[in-house]
């Protein structure tokens, strides 16, 4: 780990102004500490967001759910009302890492974490994501890599919370420097617009955040239906998704009135699949409808040499997530 300056800002404004091209923001630190110990992050300054108060609230009001960026995953997983009304969030949070990681890791950190690609995490491999000129995964070991949204790099985005929040139409609130670099500017945008594929942004992050911007809050409207997050882990005890599917579905008289679907672990960004949602909308809830949605969910997939299996695995997750969201009271289906 390199030497760095430690900053404890007292306000969001000073946190924003403490950031810059050579600084990194620390929340739970689960990811950043690993990056620094692996020498793939060498910040000259670390800005401790936890010294800013008021970013760890869970509020439920008329317009839905407001989640501070510093809310820990453990709290999301345990919150009774979130478990009841925004189930996908609780399921996604409880699927992350281990109890220790969930106690420490934050919502904002989970959304902004860096790829878990082993080439990206290797100091010795100067890959496209680290300013190099090759994605080693293309000719190398790519079993865990992306089948969607790839090129020129092929890492899989590791966030579990993002797919869940995508199907719940969440918005993300971002603080950054104001005009001419002074003061504070807040902006809010749909989470669906937050991420950037490697074709859109290669170095520095997987989101549209500038190096002085901070995710402060996530806003989740009242859900229109039941939601779920289904994650397939190679190792159940502690793992990132090999493939995951979040779903929100509204059923009425045996028909699907409205649906939202998103994939995790298989694309370079948390991957909304609106075409699959459209394939469900207005259709009777039956095997044929579910198959059609699973089919279009992986349309355009471009597997690498070792990850063809992800197509079938993803389709399985889509089918099972739809059933799980449609029949939340039934536990007779097979889970991940």
């Amino acid at each position, binding site marked *: 780990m390199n030497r760095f300056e430690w900053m404890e800002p007292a306000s969001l404004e000073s946190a924003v102004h403490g950031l810059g091209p050579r600084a990194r923001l620390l929340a739970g630190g689960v990811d950043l500490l690993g990056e620094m110990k692996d020498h793939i992050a060498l910040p000259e300054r670390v800005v401790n967001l936890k010294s800013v108060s008021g970013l760890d609230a869970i509020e439920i009001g008329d317009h839905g759910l407001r989640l501070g960026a510093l809310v820990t995953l453990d709290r999301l997983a345990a919150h009774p009302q979130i478990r009841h009304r925004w189930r996908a969030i609780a399921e996604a949070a409880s699927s992350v890492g281990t109890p220790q990681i969930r106690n420490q890791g934050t919502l904002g950190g989970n959304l902004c974490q860096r790829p878990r690609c082993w080439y990206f995490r290797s100091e010795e491999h100067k890959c496209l994501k680290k300013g190099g000129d090759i994605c*080693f995964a293309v000719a190398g070991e790519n079993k865990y890599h992306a089948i969607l949204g790839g090129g020129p790099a092929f890492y899989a985005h590791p966030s579990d919370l993002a797919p869940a929040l995508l199907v719940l139409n969440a918005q993300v609130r971002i603080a950054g420097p104001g005009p001419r670099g002074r003061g504070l500017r807040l902006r809010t945008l749909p989470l669906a617009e937050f991420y950037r594929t490697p074709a859109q942004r290669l170095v520095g992050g997987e989101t549209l955040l500038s190096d002085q911007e901070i995710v402060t809050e996530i806003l989740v409207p009242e859900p229109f239906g039941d939601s779920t997050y289904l994650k397939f882990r190679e*190792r159940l005890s502690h793992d990132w998704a090999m493939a995951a599917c979040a779903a929100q579905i509204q059923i009425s008289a045996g028909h699907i009135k409205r649906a939202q679907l998103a994939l995790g672990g298989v694309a370079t960004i948390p991957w909304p699949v609106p075409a699959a949602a459209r394939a469900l909308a207005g259709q009777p809830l039956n095997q044929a409808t579910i198959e059609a949605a699973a089919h279009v969910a992986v349309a355009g997939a471009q597997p690498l040499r070792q990850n063809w299996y992800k197509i*079938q695995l993803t389709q399985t997750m889509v089918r099972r997530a739809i059933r799980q969201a449609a029949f939340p009271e039934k536990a007779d289906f097979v889970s991940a």
Partner: protein
Amino acid sequence: MLKKKVRATGGIIIPPLNGQPQKIADAETIEVPVPAGEPPLWDVYTRPQVVGQPIPRIDGPIKVTGRARYTYDQLPAGLLHAVLVRSAHPHARLLSVDIAPAQKMPGVRAVIRLDSPDLMRASAASAAGNPEQAAAIRQAASHSQKSKTMLFVGDEIAAVAADTLEQAEDAARAIRIEYESLPFVTDVAAARQPDAPRVHAGQDNIRPLPSPHGPDGDRGDVHEGLAQADAVIETRYETNVAMQNALEPHGSVAWWDAPNHLTVWASTQGIFGFRGDLAHFFQMPASQVRVITDYLGGGFGAKFGAGIYGIAAAWLARETRAPVKLMLDRKAENLAVGNRPSSHQQLRLGAKKDGTLTAIEVVNFGTPGIGHGAGAGAASRRFYLCPNVSQRDHDVATNLGPAAAFRAPGWPQGAFALEQAMDELADKLQLDPLELRQKNYWDKPFKALRIQYEIGAARFGWRRRAQIAASNRNSGPVKRGLGMATSCWPTFGRPPAQARVVVHSDGAVEVTVGCQDIGGGMRMIAAQVTAEEFGLRPHQVRVHIGDTQPGIYGPASGGSVTTTSVAPAIRAAAYDARQKLLAAIAPRLGAAPESLRLRGGKLLGAPRALSFASACRLLRHATISAEADRAQNYEPHLTEMHGAQFAEVEVDTETGRIRVVKITAVHDCGRSMNRLLVESQVNGGIIMGLSYALLEGRVVDHPTGHVMNSNLDFYKLAGTREIPELDVVILDAIDPRGNNLDVKGIGEPVIVPTAAAIGNAVAHALGGLHIRELPMTPDRVLNALAAVRA
């Protein structure tokens, strides 16, 4: 040595099961040649009071509360911290190593270069458990100035000691190294090509390993055997390189407490081997080196000898005149200090219609990296009574970290292939897999396997197999399967091993042995065996282990020898001390020594009963001391330990997930010294075997020659949610021909069959489709299913 013939009865003790009382099966009385000086023989009818009892280990509480101090926890005053600098290239000459920038860094106390060929090669051989080879290299080595060629990513170049670990790490990165890259090869198939880059200059990458011949080795003529067969199957299985990942990494804390005296805390499986390596290297008397392993955070075969890390720590300590701690990080653990080699096995099995085996042929290529010893064990030679057996193993050198012994070296690979081939053969012959094994049973004296098969099958419900296969046809995507496999491991325990027992005049009893506790519970076993002779409880015995200083020798813990080698020496010493004690106090009681007995904490047989402590007070201030050497095994050829494991799995055919629901394991280790300790070894072996079967495998990026999963995020070890219901049954296979406790080892036989049993259960679930590669990950299951559909 003078021997007398003693009659003793062996047999299999079956513990109380399913409401049935304990039973003795296959009892047979034989004459055993027992050397003079051995305590009275125990046999199948002996009912020890303390030995064998399921008493929780005496060091359990201090381990789980964090008070046990491991090597990692040793923090003597003035401690410096050291790190190693390693090659970033898979094959390279070092053009220059500039340590000057590191020497100027804050807190840095010493920087040493480790790239002279003699030091590097000798130390590596020593750590891999080849002291003779290491000594030969040292003898032959000139003090050449030529720098050693780097042979893999992780090869050692230099070491740095500094006031803090962080300063040492910073300084290590400041060393400037210029490499000249050389052609390299890390892929086994590529390394086998005639035009592949040579890993070791001037040597073929492929090296055939010697095949032992004889009753337990290659025998007969497999071609003839295959010609005689009614059914022949030809098949292949592959296993991946697995990493050791003991919780505590390799390393030591070294301290020159006098100019010519070195004290080292080491995380080692062999304190005397570690000591010998340091004494050799520093050209000093072994008596001037003390190695201590109070508590060992795991060792699976890669922690013999001092290694480069151990030598570097002591060298830096000498340079700095301060204690130096050098423990490897997880990445180094997974790059440089030993792994289980891969295997690529082609098998042919031949059998008569009734299942009688006529031939077993195995041809195996595995990579030990830059090390050696990628054989697939001896399952093919030892499991079944087959007249024609041939196994040809080959090392395939690659530019990767060296193999080392790893819990039953070779055998899990061999069993994975052989035992699935047996199931394929059973399928072809339309025989039940267990029946096929029973048909080829190799009967040996006091062998428990026949009973283990029966007990395991009954407890597990093996008869459900046909019904489960039928219901799979109508089930959803999740298929259920039952599979089993055989285990075997030779009895390697033997001399030398020593023990000393001292009785003090206040009744305190101490036992000293020279081995370390690799985790099997040696402290507890030593206490129980000693307590037995004195009629005490084990907690009344004070145990000293893991220290070379008393000069009581103990073997390295490898080959499942520790208990088998050491415990009989303890009993001999304790028995001797007891005899001396009784002889000393009998006159003061006006009794004959032979009329006195020690039982339940009391001295009985005297005119009045005395507590043990009161009896010892008759010594006044004297102590009783007895030392004993482990006697030779009474007969040279002992039956192996055996076992059978039965696995029940669910395979999700839409995700490829294999979930192990339950494993029933029936094992023996001669007489078990403590049922809880034995069960703990069985549990650990199964979990490690399950992890090997389903998750573990080294991933190498062949274009760059780097290991990509050298941390515990990417190298996946089974966790709590992978662990199935474990049903463990321990039989006592009493073989009076071995030693005075009838004890054998258990550490290794328990991992041998696990992956094979799971593999067979998966194949049963999938209608005979075997997953031919380890680990059996979801992608491989889905790919295998897709290949069948195509």
